[in-house]
């Protein structure tokens, strides 16, 4: 018998009404009814168009999701990627039955738990214990199940001492830990997770991701939405790329991320290899960020071994002290390094004269093939005031056509995030005859 999916989405679409509405509903309802009486098409429904928020539409109805088709099999960990407004969260909401589809069908086998938010339904007046039970039952557990896991939940959250204190007396960190502990002890066949879950301190995020990895290792199915491509890549095996409410690509997570990163939507303004900014009133700000080769030519694609430079121009209006300029390089969404111009040049932390600055940052030659983005920042040292920040401002692609001399199959994707040229020095070896 062939394997059957445990989630099957068939021709599913979701229509949203955007803009101001509510008070005008009665009049449009009457209009709708009048069209129906005369045997005409619904004047509102026919105008639905694809959801491209950048271009203004003529109608206030928009397809947040259009003709979505995909299957998820047992044990799959699927990452939903796409830019803001592509429909990821809406799709997750429809899957978790928070809102209904406009057309099509979704078929699900097994118990679904959705973690679109941590601590849904927590009531500040109730004690920690009562909230564990309330939150657990909201998420679909029975009281018996919660009771059997109570000790382990309390342990995980580390709130044993405050168990019978109302949660309004908890610190916000404690509340979040308790809420996550409850959610982490769900045992559904299918887990739907939104990235909002990953709001919180770094340690908490790590805990969330770790717990999800654990869940997926137990063979349960996860659908995961995130902008953090690093965690998508780490956690997921399969990927679905949404674009303007439609499935643009589905396949292995690597292929999906590749498609996403190659498309011009990867970040809203990071499509180009050079960007210029208008002058601003602020104390210090960027004027230009670009990627260029050793000859000062700006271009999007580079080869392994080619010299790559990041060219920055920034302006300082008044004499400033303690300014530092930084640059972060990310590969496929994952940070490779962060560098400041003051790292090896302590004098720069002192005074900087007003005027325009132009710098070139030489990238190291050990970068691996991939899609890179450059983020830059100007901030004040000491008080951490950010003067200007451009996240994923420019991008470039690094290709590697060098064929490994021996193991050809590994030439492109050796494990690791960098590809340094390493010297193997033979100290002693037998002499061949």
């Amino acid at each position, binding site marked *: 018998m062939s394997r059957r999916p445990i989630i099957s989405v068939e021709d599913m679409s979701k229509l949203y009404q955007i803009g101001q509405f*509510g008070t005008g509903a009665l009049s449009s309802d009457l209009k709708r009814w009048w069209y129906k009486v005369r045997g005409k098409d619904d004047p509102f429904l026919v105008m639905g168009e694809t959801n491209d928020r950048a271009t203004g539409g003529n109608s206030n109805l928009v397809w947040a999701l259009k003709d979505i088709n995909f299957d998820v099999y047992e044990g799959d960990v699927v990452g939903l990627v796409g830019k803001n407004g592509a429909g990821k969260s809406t799709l997750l909401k429809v899957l978790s039955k928070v809102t209904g589809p406009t057309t099509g069908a*979704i078929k*699900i086998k097994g118990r679904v738990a959705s973690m679109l938010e941590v601590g849904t339904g927590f009531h500040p007046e109730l004690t920690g214990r009562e909230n564990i039970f309330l939150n657990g039952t909201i998420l679909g557990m029975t*009281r018996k199940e919660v009771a059997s896991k109570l000790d382990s939940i309390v342990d995980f959250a580390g709130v044993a001492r405050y168990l019978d204190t109302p949660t309004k007396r908890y610190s916000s960190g404690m509340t979040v830990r308790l809420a996550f502990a409850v959610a982490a002890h769900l045992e559904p066949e299918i887990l739907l997770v939104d990235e909002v879950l990953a709001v919180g301190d770094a340690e908490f995020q790590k805990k969330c991701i770790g717990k999800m990895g654990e869940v997926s290792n137990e063979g349960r199915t996860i659908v995961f939405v995130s902008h953090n491509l690093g965690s998508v890549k780490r956690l997921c095996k399969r990927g679905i790329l949404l674009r303007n409410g439609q499935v643009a690509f589905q396949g292995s997570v690597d292929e999906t991320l590749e498609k996403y990163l190659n498309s011009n939507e990867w970040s809203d303004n990071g499509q180009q290899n050079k960007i210029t900014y208008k002058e601003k009133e602020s104390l210090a700000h960027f004027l230009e960020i670009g990627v260029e080769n050793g000859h000062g030519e700006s271009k999007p694609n580079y080869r392994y071994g080619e010299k790559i430079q990041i060219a920055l121009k920034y302006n300082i209006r008044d004499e400033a002290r303690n300014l530092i300029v930084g640059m972060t390089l990310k590969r496929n969404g994952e940070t490779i390094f962060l560098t400041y111009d003051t790292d090896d040049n302590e004098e720069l932390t002192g005074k900087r004269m007003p005027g325009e600055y132009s710098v070139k940052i030489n990238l190291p030659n050990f970068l691996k093939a991939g899609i890179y983005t450059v983020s830059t920042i100007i901030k004040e040292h000491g008080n951490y005031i950010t003067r200007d920040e451009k996240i994923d401002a420019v991008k470039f692609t690094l290709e590697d056509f060098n064929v490994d001399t021996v193991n050809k199959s590994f030439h492109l994707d050796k494990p690791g995030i960098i590809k340094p040229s390493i010297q193997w020095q033979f100290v002693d070896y037998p002499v061949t005859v």
Partner: protein
Amino acid sequence: MKDKYWDSVITPKVPLIDLRLQEVLNYRDLLYMFVKRDIAQFYKQTVLGPLWFFIQPLLTTIVFTVVFGGMVGIKTDGIPPMLFYLAGITFWNFFSESLNKCATVYKDHQHVFGKVYFPRMVVPLSIVATNMLKLCVQFLLFIVVYIIFIFKGMPIEINGIALLFPILILLTGALGLGLGLMVTAATTKYRDLNFLVTFGVQLIMYITPIIYPLSKVPEKYQIFALINPLTGIVETFKYGFLGGETVFSWMYLLYSTVSTIICLLIGINFFNRTERNFIDVI
């Protein structure tokens, strides 16, 4: 052919009447937790705690007894005014609180509803269940006052109709639930209705024999009280426990029952049709 493989199939279609009792039953623990939460939040951090369940209706009864019984001088069918008002208020509070709270279910719970799925019907059911619990506690108060009056020499007029009490509670709860569901479903689309609800509930109170006995209503106005399903229920309760000149008729009760059931079915249908997508428009 229905595919047995899938546990749930989500489509845009909504059946006309679908109680989905099985689903609600699966979430009965959640219902229990909601009731517990609502009861607890009612008196947490108060000095008198659960005593407020008694104090509230008692105070209202005293005010009504003084104002309507004493100052205005409304006759109460030969029933001690205190008992007359207490009986009316106990029922009225149950009905109006169920209705008012159910009418704002979507608004009050939009945050939870927007984040996690469970059968939405659990919430209105828990509201009615909470109020039913309160009613039972308040009924004890009624019994205590009742016994005090018997010791003070009031003739005992309790009769077999009093046994209908559990049914009367269910009918009142169902009526409040049905009307509340209709309102909450309608307000997702037409916000304006919110403003009418307060007025509407007040209006229902005036056409229910709470502060006046039905027997004292002039014949040509009685029709207004009688189209109100609640009238038959309240009058049956008063007749069963207090007798006097209370108007009781099986016809009224039958009318109340039938209209309550119709109300409930319409309410459930409205609610089911809106629960899917209200989160998009609220």
